[in-house]
């Protein structure tokens, strides 16, 4: 491999004297010494401790109310009804009453939760056509084969939105009513828009270009998903701009959860009017549920979650506790290492050959 160089003379083949070629590049050689490791461990223990305490305090300041309504209240009737597929078209509403003992202060977020619903199955997750949902006309009429078997309906019409994900959209709807200790029942106002990622709403999901056509015309020639009662362009009867692929509920659903137990945002408390300007006051509440989504097939549960948030997000105690445990662990190890170092390695006796 002796490179032939342009040089000549007696030392023509002498290798270059560069730091790189002679492996003499200046370098930093760190080593695990007591001077670095022990202070680092104590410091890390301290940092984790502080973080843990701070996070714990933060998380403690949030409030969360969970309500499993699968068979609660009057919903057991609906639950039984949904067991039979032939009743799928029939509506069923039920009511669940629950108290809020301590007022939820600040922004209150309303979630629906599902348990044991595997949105993260590979075939389920793949069963969608992002090209269709971003408004590609070819995909609208000719959905991707990934959507099988929810590509076309019995009549051979292409389904929009296609695929198992869209097909299985969560279609319960809720109305929350506040029964104050005095005065009439007040329907709790929920903001049902602005509950998606900005990028999803504005980039990832778009309706096909509609050159002055109505949405219904645009979607003409497509069929609604098999399990849907309404076509995609009539999802939100109140707000025509919240229809089609850019419907907020659809977008929220389409962002598949990573785990079988998950909750998804349904709405945010609208704090414009009394008595909700400071949040949800204490008192009794009822939820009116239009009970459509069957869960008994997969032994699932449905729940409603009301929660307040901080900068850290919702009420998740894991991280604060984990930090506190880690901190204790590091401290323990640090002490152990200090002892080991003090007894054995302190004077470098074992370093003698």
């Amino acid at each position: 491999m002796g490179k032939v160089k342009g040089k000549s003379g007696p030392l023509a083949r002498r290798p270059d004297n560069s730091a790189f070629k002679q492996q003499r590049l200046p370098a930093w050689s760190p080593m695990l010494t007591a001077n670095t490791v022990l202070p680092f461990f104590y410091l890390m223990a301290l940092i984790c401790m502080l973080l843990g305490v701070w996070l714990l305090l933060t998380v403690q300041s949030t409030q969360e109310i969970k309500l499993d309504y699968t068979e609660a209240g009057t919903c057991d009737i609906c639950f039984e009804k949904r067991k039979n597929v032939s009743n799928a078209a029939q509506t069923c509403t039920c009511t669940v009453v629950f108290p809020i003992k301590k007022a939820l202060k600040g922004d209150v977020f309303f979630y629906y939760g599902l348990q044991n619903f595997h949105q993260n199955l590979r075939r389920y997750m793949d069963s969608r056509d992002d090209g269709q949902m971003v408004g590609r006309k070819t995909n609208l009429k000719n959905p991707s084969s990934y959507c099988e078997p929810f590509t076309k309906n019995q009549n051979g019409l292409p389904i929009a939105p296609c695929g198992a994900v869209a097909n299985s959209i969560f279609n319960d709807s809720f109305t929350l009513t506040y029964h104050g200790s005095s005065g009439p029942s007040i329907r709790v106002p929920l903001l049902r828009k602005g509950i998606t990622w900005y990028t999803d709403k504005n980039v990832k999901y778009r309706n096909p270009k509609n050159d002055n056509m109505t949405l219904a015309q645009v979607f003409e020639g497509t069929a609604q998903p098999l399990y849907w009662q309404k076509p995609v362009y009539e999802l939100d009867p109140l707000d025509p701009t919240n229809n089609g692929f850019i419907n907020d509920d659809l977008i929220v659903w389409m962002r598949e959860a990573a785990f079988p137990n998950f909750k998804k945002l349904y709405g945010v408390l609208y704090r414009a009017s009394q008595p909700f300007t400071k949040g949800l006051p204490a008192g009794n509440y009822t939820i009116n549920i239009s009970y459509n989504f069957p869960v008994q097939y997969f032994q699932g549960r449905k729940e409603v979650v009301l929660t307040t948030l901080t900068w850290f997000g919702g009420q998740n105690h894991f991280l604060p506790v984990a930090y506190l445990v880690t901190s204790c662990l590091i401290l323990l190890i640090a002490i152990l290492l200090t002892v080991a170092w003090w007894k054995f390695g302190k004077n470098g006796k074992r370093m003698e050959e």
Partner: protein
Amino acid sequence: MTFWTGMDCFRKKERELERKLRANDREYNLSFKYATNAIKTSKYNPFTFLPLNLFEQFQRIANAYFLFLLVLQVIPQISSLSWFTTVVPLVLVLTVTAAKDATDDINRHRSDNQVNNRKVQVLIDRKLRSEKWMDVQVGDIIRLENNQFVTADLLLLSSSEPLNLVYIETAELDGETNLKVRQALTVTGDLGEDSEKLADFNGEVRCEPPNNRLDRFTGTLTYVGQKYPLDNEKILLRGCTLRNTEWCFGLVLFAGPETKLMQNSGKTTFKRTSIDRLMNVLVLCIFGFLAFMCTILAIGNCIWEMNEGSQFMIFLPRQDGNNAAFSAFLTFWSYVIILNTVVPISLYVSVEIIRLGNSFYIDWDRKMYFARYDTPAEARTTTLNEELGQIKYIFSDKTGTLTQNIMTFNKCSINGKSYGDVYDYTGQRLEITEHTETVDFSFNPLADPRFMFHDHALVEAVKLEDPEVHAFFRLLALCHTVMAEEKKEGELFYQAQSPDEGALVTAARNFGFVFRSRTPDSVSIVEMGEQRSYELLAILDFNNVRKRMSVIVRSPEGKLCLYCKGADTIIYERLHQSCSKLMDVTTEHLNEFAGEGLRTLALAYKNLDEEYFNQWKQRHHEASTELDNQESKLDELYEEIEKDLLLLGATAIEDKLQDGVPQTIEQLSKANIKIWVLTGDKQETAENIGYSCNLLREEMNDVFIVSGNSPEDVRQELRNARTSMKPVEDSMFLPERTLGKGVKVIADELVNGEYGLVINGHSLAYALEGSMELEFLRTACMCKAVICCRVTPLQKAQVVELVKKYKQAVTLAIGDGANDVSMIKAAHIGVGISGQEGMQAVLSSDYSFAQFRFLQRLLLVHGRWSYLRMCKFLRYFFYKNFTFTFVHFWYGFFCGFSAQTVYDEWFITLYNLVYTALPVLGMSLFDQDVNDVWSFQHPQLYIPGQLNLYFSKKAFFNCALHSCYSSMVLFFIPYAAMHNTVRDDGKDVADYQSFALLTQTCLLFAVTIQLGLEMSYWTAVNTFFVMGSLAMYFAVTFTMYSNGMFLLLPSAFPFLGTARNSLNQPNIWLTILLTSILCVLPVVTYRFLLIQLCPTINDKVMFKVRRAKATPAPPPLRTRIRRTSSRRSGYAFSHAQGYGHLVTSGRFLRRPALSASSGFANIGRTTTGFSPMGRSAGYSPTGRPQNAKVPDVEVTSLQMYRTIRDPVF
């Protein structure tokens, strides 16, 4: 070799049993379809390149495996990953390899073209025509000129030189630089250069089929009804060069691929390193493990599908109504795809790159560059580097490897006075260095300027005409078989059979006794400026039994004198009683010389009585004409006349060691490397060198010498040696274990103290027999140093094979000559010393450099680093890939075993190629625990490599466990932190895409920090690679998740906005921090505890380095230890019988230029070429590189001995 011949035979449809051809008859010869002279070493042409190359590449198991994966991915039911995750790496790997193969092949095409298009003169249609080499055919007659390469294997027909001789250099063929003689048959020689006659030549040749034996040829030539036998002496082989011959004609016998050169150029066995072998085993284990994981997941899937999946079918119907079992089957294959990263394809590419880089370091190393020959070290194989860090046994040649094969006249003792040492004014002996003042020989116009001597006293004694001193040098000038050559007046050049003789004669020359020329019966010397001619009456030649040689000369004054030189023990037995006093003094000197490792000779003379001599000569003549018992009778006669000698003194010749050999050997033995010297030398010489190069030491408890002449003796000697090393024999529990195939592995046995073993050639032959080889191996391996003397090349290889067979150890063979080739090829690693003899050893070696001392740098620095780097690389690589993969395994339990990946597909594609490739490559190319100076100071650092400590099955298992832990942290922490969390604005962050992003970011941080912990040498490049790769990750991620990419290809980049929406969340970053801490914590704890409680040698040295904070002072130069030993070196002349009879017989003839001056005429026809055995013995004092290409080839000994049938006696 036989294997390749076998292959060739298979390749041919029908095996050629005999070759028949007729000169100048193309039609007849064509009927046999012999190969033409076009050679093709290239593998591909533009059309076949792609299919052939791909076919070859897919024969590699890794590539085939990935092709298989690719096929799986195309099946939609199975495909769990997009095709590009496999295709991108695979295409990259294939392209890189194909590019390398293509450039190699282009080079081969080029050299093929160059060779095929060389011109040569061919006799066609009765005329000489210039033709391309490739158009030459069997049966053609071609004309070669001086310094031309021989075109094909030729039968020599005629030549310009007298007696139809030609001279050829065979360096390219067998590595020997000396010229060889070939001679044509007289009947063809008479054809001369007459093209008419040549064109009429219609001889028919029948000969052996093509084979690879370079030294053998059988065949017959039938011409004009006569049959003539053909042998190797009449054949010119392709690859030789014609020298000193104006022209010659030859008949093509074998052409192109059928020439012996090409038949020999079959690929040598492909060497693999032990890490390679280990890796193959590990890969198999990994496959097994992969299957195991997939099975678990498939079973999980089956259960899940039965319990839950069937109920979930309302949302996700199974295709074609498959049942749970079938779904599990598909899942199995889907997981094979997902988990394929446990067998990383990029591993193989990276390993090759690392090895290549580390090979370049060897090429670039200035400290392994030898300026005198302008020779840098060269890594000729780029795949064995890390094995250099694991060498346990070194097998070394002696001559030319440990020694320079240069003899210098160093000291002498004349008449009881010792010369050669230099003393200062206080009487202290001075160490002779390069700067010591040398003696000025300008008084002698014929002196050899390269000769160096430091003691002025000897010159003074010569000038004072001390009679003993004069007699001493006269003896040296007369008693030898050296040939002198005087091209120009006063420019003498000696051709000696052995370098020792050359050194002695040169010494005499410089001290004023110049041997000038010889005829069969006279020797002319210039004695102190005065020309004298001595009549040479007899040469009593050297042989191994006599261990001495004598000459009987008559001085110009008419005095008869016998001069004798020989091994001191032999001479002493034949001395006259009168010199007993001198004997004592001289013995003391001899001991001193021997103690310094010098080769000694005793010199003696005797004045002869004319009458007695005449009578002796008469008897001698009778004896030499007698047919039976001639030799023993001659011996008796010699014995009779060589007695009652008078001692003159003794000479001491230094067999010059190469620079730094003792230090190197000391370093290597400190590194626990066992050094075996395998030499063709005699026992005494070898032993002596053993002492002078520090291999054998006075401090050793014992040095055993095995020289038995029967198997029983040898066995007994070996047993005795072992019992004295280890009195408690536990042969009942021979520590051995059986490997597969029934081959035993002998573990090392511990002995107290250091021992050496010297074994003789004939004893070795017994010791290598099947029944005794274990005995020999056990004894030898208990010794620190082993010297085998008088070893044939085959035995060298046998010894290496023996150790390879029974010891699980890495062996290295180092040598310089053609006789070392077998051992170089046999050993795990072969090293050639370049620049001394031919290129044969270098050509078959894996590494080559110019000096033995570079071996310590090759092993202790390059080898150690390479091994360290490779092991660190492998450990880390497995860690990072296992960690990466296991996370999928854990996720399987949460996603219904549906083969859903945890990460984004693009991350899977780029993880090994982009995000983690460069940092680990940087580590494996730059890492060093301590620098080279410290490596030299602590050779013990080498020992972990021999014990496979850095990477073994255990280390691999630890890696897997570590990965398992890390992957659990990396999966479950993000899981727990995320599964119930939302963003600070209440929106989703527990979705699959955010989780994927979070996990992959955690993973990347964890493996990068782990890399930082592994790396002990942070150069700017490393830092750049590490930081750059992280930056690259974020850059690529943000790009892939950007609006533009999504809108371009919505289905390929569905992660739109994930990075923006989740990486701005504090709890994401807190999770990353927590996983990083938890991943690092046990590693740091474990390592720190290890350093504190049981530090390894590396830790100790690194601790020292930190303390010293500076490079240590270079080790003090070892002064040469003087030994006062009774060990006496023998008469260390050449190995072969002397050729004194040739000198005196007059059966030699000079080159024309010289024949005139010697007054010796051509009186006959030559019969055979003379080829001396052993090494070429061109005497070269210091400094003249022997391999320097001299355009006009010098006259070598060969050409001066064209023997003539004309006996004198």
